[in-house]
Each structure stands twice: as C-alpha cells, then as structure tokens.
C-alpha cells in the first residue's frame, strides 16, 4: 500500500518580481502610515505614482511566526522608502502541531462506534472517520497548516502514521483595514489647477518680488482648488475579519459510547465470532455457539423438528 505523504511546501516566492512582501513591526506600520499621509503631498506625488495607498496591496496578520529574511527598505511603487521591513521570501510556509500517540480507546468494535470531531482554526469543526484515525492500535497523529502568507490561504492536513487522512482549505489572514481615497481625481484636478496657477504666475511681467508673490498666490489657488475638488468618497480596501479571537488551537475530540457491560455475557449469549466452520464439531468444548442462518437437513425429522433445531442454533445457541 502506498503512503499518501504530506507534500513539501514550495520554496521561494510565487510573486517574485510582482509583489514585495515584508514582515513588519507595529512601529513600522505607524511610520509607513505617516509616510503615506505625509503633508509633503507634492513630494509623495512625485515620488509615488498616482495613488499612494494603492501601492499597498494588503496589511494583514498571519497568525504564526512567519519566517523572513534580513531587513530591507520597503519599496512603494518606484520609491525606496526609508522604512525597514523584513523581506519574506518564501510564500508558502508551514506550521506543524505536536504529535500525539492516539490509541484505540477500546480495542474492539466500539472504536468504530466513536464519533470524532476535529476543530481546525479558520475551518471550523469537521467530522473524522474512526476508520481513518484508528488505523493501528497506536497512531501517530499531527496537524500541519501550509499557508500562503501573502493571501492567507491555507491547506490544513490531518496526518496519521505519515499518511494524509484528509485535508481542509481556508484562509487565516486577518486583514487590518487600509483606508484609501480616490486620489486619481484629486490629482487630475490638482494638476489642472496647478497648471493654471503656473500659467497665472507666468503671465505676470517679470518682477522678482511680484513674481514670488504671484507664484505664492498661484500656490494658494492650487491648494484652494485642491480642497474644492477633494474627493467625497473614501473606501476601505480591506476589512477587519471575524477571524480575530477565534480559538487558535486545533483539537480532536473523541466521543466514546458507554456500553452496559455484563461479565457473564459470554456464558449466556456468547461473543461475536463470524467464522465459518465445515463441521460444528470444530467448536466442541468451546461453550455456547450461535449460528447465522443455520439450515438443518436431518433425515427422519419432522418439519417442526428441523425448524426447532434451526431456531435453537440461530437464536438461543447450543453448547457443543
């Protein structure tokens, strides 16, 4: 029988050359925010492309320690900022639980009467078949999450004795809200206003003092125009999800049936056997024997006697 082993997580970045991914601290996030909302808007306008917030695809929390490389300057658009973050190179990362040695709770058919529930963070509660969990008397069981740290998408594997029993998918990203505004309309309006302001300044005859004054007046006009054309719509690029506060630890719960035992049962009704015999004499001196669908063909017996033999062997049992 071939093992269905857990796959290796792919190494490297699936987004190499397209996206930059950083692990940052809370302080870094504040600094980045400051940078984005810098009062030096013209600076931002020239350094960053049309809409500064659009350079941030997402800010989210991955609920485990992501492996990263050395610190590097965060790049936004075509601007290398002065803010440092740890570059995340491996898109797919995994977290694996401790291993449990789970024994069959009874060591008999009741093992397969158990109900087994598995809770997986960001998936919920799922059913697990006892046949999958109680493969051997002792079972080495663990859970592994393979997570895309850029999107938060993951596949959770339940592994038993090195075999993947089942897998579940979900998303563990906990996005932080990133607010944005329609900067493109701002810029469109501001550029035209700015050009008007420059045009006004240029139209005034040369006068060092007057030129400065006129340029200042143009700038004020631009600012006024900017305010008057300020966008009225703000949007939130990402939403805070309900993932916050979910129970973080997977757990397996085995519900076991409560049987009312009778130590004398084997003398009265026997215990399951389920074997075929070519002659019932094979069971001699083994105590009570009950048969399944026994058909009796004794010669010289009345029909009632044959039926009675069958009834006794199939229901009450006979001591051979």
């Amino acid at each position: 029988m071939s093992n269905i082993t857990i796959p290796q997580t792919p190494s490297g970045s699936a987004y190499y050359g397209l996206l930059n991914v950083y692990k940052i601290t809370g302080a870094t996030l504040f600094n980045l925010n400051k940078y984005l909302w810098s009062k030096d808007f013209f600076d931002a306008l020239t350094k960053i492309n049309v809409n500064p917030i659009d350079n941030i695809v997402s800010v989210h929390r991955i609920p485990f320690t992501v492996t990263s490389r050395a610190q590097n300057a965060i790049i936004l658009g075509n601007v290398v900022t002065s803010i440092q973050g740890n570059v995340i190179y491996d898109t797919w990362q995994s977290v694996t639980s401790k291993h449990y040695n789970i024994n069959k709770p009874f060591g008999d058919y009741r093992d397969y009467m158990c109900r087994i529930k598995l809770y997986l963070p960001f998936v919920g509660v799922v059913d697990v078949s006892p046949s999958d969990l109680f493969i051997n008397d002792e079972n080495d069981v663990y859970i592994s999450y393979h997570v895309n740290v850029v999107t938060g998408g993951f596949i959770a594997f339940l592994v038993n004795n090195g075999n993947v029993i089942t897998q579940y998918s979900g998303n563990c990203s906990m996005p932080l809200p990133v607010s944005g505004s329609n900067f493109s309309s701002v810029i469109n309006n501001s550029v035209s206003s700015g050009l008007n302001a420059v045009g006004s300044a240029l139209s005034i005859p040369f006068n060092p003092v007057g030129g400065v004054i006129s340029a200042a007046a143009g700038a004020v006009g631009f600012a006024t125009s900017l305010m008057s054309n300020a966008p009225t719509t703000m949007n939130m690029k990402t939403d805070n999800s309900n993932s916050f506060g979910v129970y973080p630890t997977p757990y397996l719960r085995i519900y076991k049936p409560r049987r009312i035992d009778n130590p004398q049962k084997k003398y009265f009704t026997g215990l399951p056997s389920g074997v075929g015999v070519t002659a019932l004499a094979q069971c001699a001196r083994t105590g009570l024997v009950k048969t399944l669908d026994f058909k009796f063909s004794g010669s010289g017996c009345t029909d009632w006697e044959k039926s009675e033999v069958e009834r006794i062997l199939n229901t009450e049992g006979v001591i051979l």
Partner: protein
Amino acid sequence: MIYTEIILYKTDSRNNVLYKELTNELKLNGALRENTVITNPVITVEISGAFDYNYAYIADFGRYYFISKVEIQRDKLFRLELRVDVLMSNSTTISGSNATVLYSQNYSNNSNIPDSEYAYENKEDFENYIFYTGITTNDYMFNMSNYDVVGASDYGSLVVVTVGAAQ
C-alpha cells in the same frame, strides 16, 4: 395400547447442551397412549419412583425426550408427558453440519464485530487532544505594540504586501 421400550435417565445438563450427560439409566416397558404424537408422546410406566428421572429415550422412535410432566395414576403407575429433545436426537447430524458461527463463548471470538446484544447508555464519554501549532489569535494582537517583537510567536506576524520595484 402400544407397548414400547423406554429408557429413563437423569440429566443435569442444560436443555441447550447437544450431548447431555445422562445418569441413572433405567430400562423398562411402557404403554403409549393411543393417538400419541411422536414429538410429544404420553407414556404410562410402572416404576417404584418416577421422580428421579427427567429424561428419556425411546428406541422405536429414535429420539430423546425431556420428561415435561409426571402424573401419578396409582401406586407405582405413572403417566409421563414427554417432549422431544431435537438437539440430542440429532446430535451427530448437527455436529457434522457446516455453519457460520455468529456468536461463541470461546471459539474464534472477534472483538471487531459489533455486538448487537449489548445495551448502551444514552450518554458518551469524551477525551480531547490539543494540537498546539503555534497558531495564535489571542487578544494581544489588538495591541499593536506587540508586533514590535518581530517573530514573537504569541502575536503572529504582521505582513505588508506592496507593489513596486523588485527587491
């Protein structure tokens, strides 16, 4: 009136024992009641004490019987009502028959076959296995200062994804 030989026995074996242990053998002749049924014959015997016997064999019928009722007719005359023991009467044939043994006291018991003859409580026990993975969603994450510890496992990781020139 039909006369036949009857052998009386005493047995302590349970009714469902195939080969019963028989003691106190006593051969005598008895008178069968007319219109008797072979599986439930009624026979009258003269004997000093019929109460020591609970089992019988009638060779003419080739069958063993349980003595199900003893009725005193008069002094030393007893009327015995018999019921055929289909097991002992057919023991050789039964022993040689093939069969599927569903339940057995001691023969090839298989504990993985469900036993429908048990009763179960309408209640279950349970046991938990907690698989610590390092995944965390605890309240600390609301305090941004916790993210200042890059890689602190209790707080997860804050990830920012940007577009821009490649690193």
